[in-house]
């Protein structure tokens, strides 16, 4: 018979692959030009995720999978509601 859950139980459960804020400059068409001060050489793929619109935390993201000038692959998205850019492993 229970009682309160062990404090550690709730405190330390975390999400994997949480989005991190990114510094992005974009072209006039909305595609990223600079990601964290590195030039984007190629946009490999782009897609939209619109989900949970029936909840109080709707998701409306425009994802871009890009190749940076250093050769590194990166995945960034623009949150349409917050008008901010984030980087995340998709």
């Amino acid at each position, binding site marked *: 018979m*229970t*009682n309160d859950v062990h404090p550690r139980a709730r405190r*330390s459960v975390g*999400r994997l692959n949480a989005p991190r804020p990114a510094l992005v400059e974009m072209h006039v068409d909305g595609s990223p030009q600079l990601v964290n001060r590195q030039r984007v050489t190629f946009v490999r793929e782009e897609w939209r995720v619109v989900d949970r619109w029936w909840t109080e935390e709707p998701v409306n993201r425009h994802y871009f999978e890009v190749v940076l000038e250093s050769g590194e692959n990166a995945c960034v998205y623009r949150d349409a509601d917050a008008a901010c850019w984030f980087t995340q492993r998709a």
Partner: protein
Amino acid sequence: MIACLLIPGFELRAALRSRPGVELKPAALAPVPGTEPLLGPVTAAAEAAGVRAQMRLGEALASCPELVLVDPDPAEVEREWEGVLRRLEDVGLAVEPVDPGVVVFETKGVERLYGGVAEALQRALAAVGTAWDPRAGAAGRRFAALAAASVARPGQILIVEGKEEREFLAPLPLSLLPLHPERYAELEGLGVRKLGELAALPGGAVAERLGPDGRRAWALSRGGERRRVRGRAPAVELAEALSFPEAVANELTLRRAFGALLDRLLARPDRGGRPFRKLAVAARLVSGGSWRRTVTLREATAERARLRAALGPKLAELPAPIVELRLEAVELADHTGTQLALVEPRGQELGGRLREGLRQVRASTGSGSVCAVVEVAPWSRIPEARSLVVPRDE
């Protein structure tokens, strides 16, 4: 004396704790899905509107269209009931819970401490708190104590002396007896409406007409047997919970989450190496209600595979998607030696090495530093909703 403390409609009251304000409206505990559509306990406002407990749902809604149906919340009921029992134990009472909302205890051990039966019961009512509207009864036998508590008003104490029990029970209604509704109708058809009228009948004739249940009811109407109260063993406080970022119904995900919870429960140092005798799986449903199943193990064990085999199938009984899964150790057995295997199962050695490696990492970096990734919604389009990082302190 044997005392009984009663909180009528405890399931509804507990479910309404998270919905303040509803207790003042006409509200009733909704029927459990898949069972006969009969209402559970109802609020005073619902009673005033003509709604009764055990009334058919359609009939209740027809007579009171504004009736609020409250989903059953067994996990909350369990939690609140445990709190009530602990508060009673804190004032020195060895309690024997009967049902949520009904508890019996002996007053003998605390009469001298508090200065009498009435004072001890007053103390018990104060410990429970006025918010629950508890009432108490005391008598020489259990059933008489329960009957006394049933007719007492909220906060009132009713003490029935031994020689007055028969007279006290005689005018009370038959509804106090644990009988099937058809039996009440049968007895009413025979003109028996009071406990005294049933008690006056010959026991053999009652048994012949109503069977073993009737015989038991007849014995209760005469006061019932003199059975001692056995205080419960102290409850343990071991529980682990996992909240999901979004509602989950997939059995594979549930089993993975359950596995992670089991690992964490087994790793709790306060278990002290003792095996589990009784466990409970509980979940908070996306609709707001809760679900709970308890499993008593035939042989107390702390083996992961056995526990998974015993509890895992219960997850298939979940009635709706859930947002939180919880695993509780209800009862632990004493530590006993276990028979070692002659031939170790395959992978045991590798598993042992892995555990030892992780133990060393934890020893050098601290608790919570070793985590496992649990996939909770691998199909989700939102990357951060697919997996959780759960501490692995095994």
